[in-house]
């Protein structure tokens, strides 16, 4: 997703994360790597990535072809819920060979780090990716301590 920003596939922050998870699965077996209680089956629409920096958490929702007006984003403490609907137009006169694209209503709920501030949330939708940026509370950021 970020090849051009981070300089190559090998350094891709999410690829690396996934590789590690896959390796852990292979070494320890699935049961040794407990899934989050709100984790969903692979292939659930829409897929979501979450990234964090010391001052903010960004949630990327990969959902092409949405009308942003149908989106409902809400936060309760550190629980983020995103719902919306995607309508795929169907050509009644056509023969369909493949119908893989998601059609209908969706809702996803994910847990963010505890220190996010539910009052400071921004969202934008571009090229089919909904990016939700949540600021973290000041106190949680690492602070440089000077030794006198």
């Amino acid at each position: 997703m970020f090849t051009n920003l981070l300089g190559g596939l090998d350094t891709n922050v999410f690829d690396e994360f996934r590789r590690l998870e896959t390796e852990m699965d292979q070494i320890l077996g699935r049961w040794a790597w407990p899934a989050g209680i709100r984790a969903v089956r692979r292939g659930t629409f829409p897929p979501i990535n979450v990234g964090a920096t010391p001052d903010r958490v960004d949630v990327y929702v990969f959902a092409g072809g949405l009308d942003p007006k149908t989106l409902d984003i809400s936060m309760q403490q550190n629980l983020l819920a995103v719902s919306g609907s995607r309508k795929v137009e169907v050509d009644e006169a056509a023969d369909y060979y493949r119908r893989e694209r998601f059609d209908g209503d969706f809702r996803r709920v994910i847990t963010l780090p505890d220190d996010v501030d539910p009052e400071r949330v921004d969202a934008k939708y571009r090229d089919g990716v909904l990016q939700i940026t949540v600021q973290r509370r000041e106190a949680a950021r690492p602070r440089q301590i000077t030794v006198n």
Partner: protein
Amino acid sequence: MSAAKQEVAKRESTDVQAPKAREESLALAPAVDIYENAQGITVQADMPGVSKDGLRIQADRNSLVIEGNAVIDVPAAMEAIHAEVQATRYRRSFALSGELDAERIEATLKNGVLTLRIPKRAEFRPRKVEVRVG
């Protein structure tokens, strides 16, 4: 269209020289809907994160290849804490049959959804056969 076709030819020759097996394995196959009506075949593909600049479509008589590079806005110091999308590229290919006119494919990209219309050659469009009684 001629400039686009040159691009197609160039890419094919470099692909032959340096097959990129690893990149290939990292590519996501976008979900597609494919349907056919009297005019031709339509392919719709979900490629969130891909803009017009990141999209590449190669088509010739026999094959259609859809590729896209997804780009999203990631701050420099970001660490992944959850990742369901595992790659930065989309790629999917299809075999085309001879009645389709690859020269006249129309592509549109909107909100991360690619729509390709591949028309049938005129002589292959269905003609209604009238049945005379008597």
